[in-house]
């Protein structure tokens, strides 16, 4: 586990503080399944997004003024007067979208390959907590420019808590710091928006600690049985992750430089006005599926419960999924239903962007029903009744048999190998 070096300074430090061996252990020699496909790039990409958001955010905070009468103008000051302020702000605003895009792909990858199953339950839990904190952080960040959508989004979302019986209204007033969304709300959101990303950093550390305990899952979903199944993280996955990062950066730059407001809402370039309500109040795209679930339920309180349940149900996943096989590659029925779930989530996003009436309401209700049906009913049942295809003996054997090409990609066909 120690580190081989002749450098006396490194030795001196290492003897007192084992940073070099720790880094070596977790980033260089770290044994990684040799068959990870490109869907496994999104974890490190999410980490990059977090760092980008923190760096741009810290610089933006140097120029921004969290006051109800100055926030909007100080945002425009950043866009117009601060050197490359437009670049910082567009990276930060689009970076939030990129972060969610990457994390959603990361989560669906976990769902497909069964990465939440024994012994990775706590790894999965930490991921969900990170997602929840990301949502809170992104929501509060969206309030800071103090545009119309900032203000009314904050009003709608904080008002959800008023659905709680008896203590709802006091809770909402406590969140607001007053009797309406106002300067006190803005100040505390700013403070928390600065704080929570560092909490996320801490949770990411724990997420990695849990990951490194039992190592990465892989597209075959079978355990690492020995050194023949793994390769060191460096140079193999550093090279692969860097290539993925390059592709991601091109997409990111495309938005920042050529369509910086495509994912935003025009109303947020109108200063907040408590007396004028926008025709349609919509959150950012990454919260739309949850917004759709909220509005699919005719009762306010039950709608709020359903919305929170849609995330909290993920905590139960390791036990709701009764199948002992991790990877959907070997689960013919689950695989089909998985894609239905993905379609259902996209449909919910589309519904959330539109007013809750007519066809949107119908689709929203069907998709909401399917969403909960998937986790609460289909997952346990499929696990019991499905007959999984035979699993390969080991990762190494599978790679050797498929030979050439990508390391045992997701669709490696194991038939005929009993």
């Amino acid at each position, binding site marked *: 586990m120690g580190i081989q070096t002749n450098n006396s300074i490194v030795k001196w430090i290492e003897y007192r503080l084992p940073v070099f061996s720790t880094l070596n252990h977790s980033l260089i020699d770290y044994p990684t399944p*040799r068959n990870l496909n490109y869907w496994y790039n999104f974890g490190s990409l999410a980490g990059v997004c977090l760092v980008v958001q923190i760096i741009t955010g810290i610089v933006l905070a140097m120029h921004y003024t969290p006051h109800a009468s100055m926030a909007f*103008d100080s945002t*425009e000051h950043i*866009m*117009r007067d601060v050197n490359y302020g*437009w*670049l910082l702000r*567009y990276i930060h605003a689009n970076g939030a979208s990129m972060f969610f895009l990457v994390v959603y792909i990361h989560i669906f990858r976990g769902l497909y390959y069964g990465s939440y199953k024994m012994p990775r339950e706590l790894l999965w839990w930490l991921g969900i907590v990170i997602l929840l904190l990301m949502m809170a952080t992104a929501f509060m960040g969206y309030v800071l420019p103090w545009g119309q959508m900032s203000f009314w989004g904050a009003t709608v979302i904080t008002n959800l808590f008023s659905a709680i019986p008896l203590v709802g209204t006091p809770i909402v007033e406590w969140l607001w710091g007053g009797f309406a969304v106002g300067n006190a709300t803005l100040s505390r959101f700013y403070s928390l928006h600065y704080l929570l990303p560092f909490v996320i950093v801490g949770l990411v550390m724990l997420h990695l600690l849990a990951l490194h305990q039992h190592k990465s899952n892989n597209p075959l979903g079978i355990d690492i049985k020995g050194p023949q199944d793994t*390769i060191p993280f460096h*140079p*193999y996955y550093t*090279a*692969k992750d*860097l*290539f993925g*990062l*390059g*592709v991601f*950066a*091109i997409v990111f*730059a*495309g938005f*920042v*430089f*050529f369509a*910086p*407001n*495509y*994912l935003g809402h*025009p*109303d947020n*370039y*109108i200063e907040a006005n408590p007396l004028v309500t926008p*025709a349609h109040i*919509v959150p950012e*795209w990454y919260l739309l599926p949850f917004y759709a679930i909220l509005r699919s339920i005719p009762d306010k309180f039950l709608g709020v419960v359903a919305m929170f349940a849609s995330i909290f149900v993920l905590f139960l996943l390791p036990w709701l999924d009764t199948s002992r096989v991790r990877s959907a590659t070997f689960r013919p029925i689950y695989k089909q239903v998985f894609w239905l779930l993905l379609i259902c989530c996209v449909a919910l996003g*589309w519904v959330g*962007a*539109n007013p809750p009436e*007519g*066809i949107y309401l119908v689709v929203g209700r069907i998709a909401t029903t399917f969403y909960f049906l998937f986790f609460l009913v289909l997952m346990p049942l499929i696990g019991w009744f499905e007959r999984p295809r035979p699993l390969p003996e080991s990762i190494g054997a599978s790679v050797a048999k498929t*030979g*050439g*090409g990508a*390391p045992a990609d997701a669709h490696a066909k194991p038939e005929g190998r009993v």
Partner: protein
Amino acid sequence: MRPIAALALCLALAGGPALAAGDTTPPKSVDWPHGGPFGTFDRAALQRGFLVYKQVCAACHGLRQVAYRNLNEIGFNEAQVKVLAAEVEVQDGPNDQGEMFNRPGRPSDRFRSPFANPQAARAANNGALPPDLSLITKARAGGGGYIYSLLTGYRNPPAEVKLAEGMSYNPYFAGRQIAMAPPLNEGAVEFADGTKAGVEQMAWDVTTFLAWAAEPEMEARKRMGVKVILFLLVLTGVLYAVKRKVWAEVH
């Protein structure tokens, strides 16, 4: 979410009865010279558009995020900017006697808004509030196309539409009734470059100017974007080659 909006629109249109008198006409899609990944502002149109803003729009609409010094960027030299800024009086102070005073504008001042506050603006405009135009092309769905459509979209109302007192008919405006009377009239301004000041021409020019006012960084952004993307394409190509080389022995 523009594709979704378009889809929603199709559904709304297919819905038939949904298209009541209150619905709006979708804005014209305009092919601006400053659109697309390489588009740049038409400098002559920017300067003409500034004149239209100054002589027509500025009577009611502010442009408070823009400073007079920014006019440098659309081709006015420093001396011209000083003269333009000095045309308005701005309040400053307090002075050594503790009193506020008026002085001629300086290039560092932001555009002076025509009204002291929203209440004054409403009082002078039949209860309607003329919005500040600094961000108008970013703050409306349809962007510049919407502004251009609105400015050129005034019509006589159809027989079944009853206009409220002091309102004008404009199918592009939400509700189709707008408190702003048709702002552009043939020959309302006289362009120094001899361009004929038709309504469409003035609408085109002032929309170009407002697009610049909303996104003064646009040209620098696109220029940088082209360089960044080209760099990333090369870098990513190299990284792909590295990845192939590193993994060659594993396969």
